[in-house]
């Protein structure tokens, strides 16, 4: 009798394990409401196409995901697919052998039959492809059309026009620029843009690669423009205690006029306001320089310790297809990485045109440079925004960290 029970238990375990072998674990950072909804929608479509794979989707908040990813990658068994960012952030893990190359997803149809060739470098490391891009978006200065119309402002294109717009907004009792630096990365966008507009992307890439010292006078030049905004008190006064969504509130209630932010700002604006939201390209400072923009790329990668790699590759192929990327981009208003997918709406078309008219793109400060250095840098930027007179000391401290990491 005892033997029988034992054998039944063994049989059940075997059955359970064989089912477990068909389970696909997906961890996503789509924590905000709209991306969460769309991810669940895509999941259902995947499940419909592959009914014998049991899919488990775990969605985490955007900020927590960044910390959790490290523990998953270091564990014995990890999730099968994780969402992440292209660029240095991904290469950091590839270099340590923590994610798996997925060249065979593109064995039949090459990478550039799906995606623009320009994306390939951000998705690969050492010649192998590690990352499947899903969507990308642009950064620009967002504003409310109604507010600008009321105050008779036209979107500025040059630096002088931009300063004039800030003045007008300030005279009318609004804070010209809103930002939320509790989570530091929002300040890095300003650093990126001032460098792209004053020093050009090719030189700036040297900074991101850790080859240029942070005490370089060209960086100081770029920061001087930023200092003009800070010293004129154009930013909201208490940004270091606000997250970017809380700072968005200021724009919504007309306490602030403009917001340098990525297209995902639309996810968090109330429905009624979405049509009122418009954007313009970050103003040109040096007209002789080429025009560069920020286009972070989001997508998926496979950890090396994944359990079910075959199903993971099915998911990656599924996500890479034009049909699915078309649906995602339509729902979220993002631009699909797949080049066969048109821009979903007029707003996205405008963004796409703006990027197409630019001469080059980068990802984002904390996606393109060493993560440890990024943290120190961004803390320095927030400090600069509160105490611009401390610029020299701040850059010296960041430089110390750069030397420690890269030399």
């Amino acid at each position, binding site marked *: 009798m005892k033997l029988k029970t034992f054998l039944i238990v063994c049989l059940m375990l075997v059955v359970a394990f064989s089912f477990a072998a068909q389970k696909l674990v997906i961890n996503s950072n789509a924590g905000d409401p709209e991306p969460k909804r769309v991810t669940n929608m895509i999941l259902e479509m995947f499940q419909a196409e592959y009914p014998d794979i049991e899919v488990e989707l775990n969605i985490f908040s955007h900020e927590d995901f960044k910390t959790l990813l490290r523990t998953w990658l270091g564990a014995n068994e990890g999730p099968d697919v994780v969402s992440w960012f292209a660029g240095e952030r991904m290469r950091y893990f590839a270099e340590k052998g*923590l994610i798996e190359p997925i060249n065979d997803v593109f064995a039949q149809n090459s990478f550039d039959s799906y995606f623009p060739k320009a994306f390939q470098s951000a998705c690969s490391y050492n010649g192998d492809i590690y990352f499947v891009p899903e969507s990308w978006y642009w950064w620009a200065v967002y504003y409310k059309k109604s507010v600008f119309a009321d105050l008779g402002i036209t979107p500025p294109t040059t630096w002088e026009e931009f300063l004039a717009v800030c003045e007008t907004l300030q005279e009318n009792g609004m804070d010209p620029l809103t930002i939320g630096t509790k989570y530091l990365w929002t300040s890095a966008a300003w650093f990126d843009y001032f460098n792209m507009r004053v020093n050009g992307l090719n030189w700036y890439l040297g900074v991101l690669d850790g080859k240029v010292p942070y005490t370089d006078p060209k960086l100081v030049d770029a920061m001087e423009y930023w200092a003009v905004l800070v010293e004129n008190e154009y930013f909201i*006064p208490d940004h270091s*205690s606000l997250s970017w969504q809380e700072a968005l509130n200021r724009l919504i209630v007309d306490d602030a006029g403009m917001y340098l932010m990525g297209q995902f700002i639309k996810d968090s604006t109330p429905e009624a306001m979405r049509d009122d939201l418009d954007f313009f390209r970050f103003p040109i400072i040096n007209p002789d320089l080429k025009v560069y923009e920020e286009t972070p790329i989001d997508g998926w990668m496979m950890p090396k310790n994944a359990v079910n790699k075959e199903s993971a590759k099915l998911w990656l192929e599924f996500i890479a297809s034009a049909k699915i990327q078309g649906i995602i981009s339509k729902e979220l208003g993002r631009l699909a990485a797949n080049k066969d997918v048109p821009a979903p709406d007029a707003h996205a078309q405008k963004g796409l045109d703006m990027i197409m008219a630019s001469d080059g793109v980068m990802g984002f400060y904390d996606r393109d440079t060493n993560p*440890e250095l990024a943290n120190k840098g961004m803390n320095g930027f927030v400090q600069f925004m509160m105490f611009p007179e401390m610029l020299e000391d701040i850059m010296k401290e960041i430089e110390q960290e750069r030397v420690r990491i890269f030399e």
Partner: protein
Amino acid sequence: MRISKNKWWVPWAFLAIPLVLYGIWVIYPVIQTFSVSFTQWDGMSAKKTWVGFSNYSRLFGDSTFWKSLKNNFYWLIMFIAIPIPLGLGIAMLFDIKLPGGKIFKTLFYLSMTLSFVVIAQIWSWIFEPKNGALTMTFKALGFENLAQIQQMLLDALLFVAIPVVLSLVVGYWVNKHWDIRKPSRRWAVTFGCMASLLVVAFLVSRFWHPQINASRFARRGFPWLSDPDFVTFSLIFAAIWRQIPYVMVLYLAGLKNVPPQLVEASIVDGANWGQRFWHVILPMLKPATVIAVTISIIDSLRAFDIVYAMTQGGPFNSSSVLANFMYIESFNNYQMGYGSSIAVIQFLITLGFIVAYLNNVIKSEG
């Protein structure tokens, strides 16, 4: 009752399983942390590079470390100075058995039952610089910015609190020196000292009136969480709000252990309320006080949840404490070795206090 010689192993047998579990889950990780602190490790790869003491030398040159130490020091001081007297005071109030006492006790317990993350969220709303409850209250009271509040507190401290305290001391000394017995005379002397010292303070304030530099706050109004110098105190305030009922509970239990006969005997002997409190009740509360102080020290050195949830140690590490600094370095910056060295330092500091406490306990238990 002596345990017979051949049964010496019985206590150890009982302790065996807990000791093993303690060894695996507490001692071993501590040893591991010590060893990881001598390496450079990103927490993910299998490789750990031995770097000797370089993590520690880097730590002592890191400005964030010294800021964290300073902030922990503030936490320590304020966690002892405020919750303990206030907790004791509130516990004594409940001892008087006022009507509706039970309801108030529950209200006080309430803040203790909330998790730190919930407390952090609530206080983040209260501390919201433009529309939070605290800002609105102070605006309604007529203050325009934080500097004005600080100025008022400074004036109160220098020109009211110090003279009053001084006058109590002087009055006591004068009464003793001239051997004044009559209570009404004693009070008259004390109040006379107080009045004269307050007049002196007022005259002094005409010539010497230190001003708080308000220029930084002129635009920012009430930067409870965004001003780098003030943010730590906002966080400590939220933590103390929770710590006071905790200490109060300890003292309520301690007060129950004060034998009522002792108190009644002192009343019969003619002790007034002050003498009863100082000479009878407080000494009987010594064990509770020792526990309360130790717990407060450990909690202040351990503080992480509130700091991480409210400001993440910001703005730019101004409110960073050791635990928060360790977390960010280990898990956000992929520097487990460096983070472990911070943990070791924190461990050593806490160990110092715990050893002192245990010494005290062992001595008193003979």
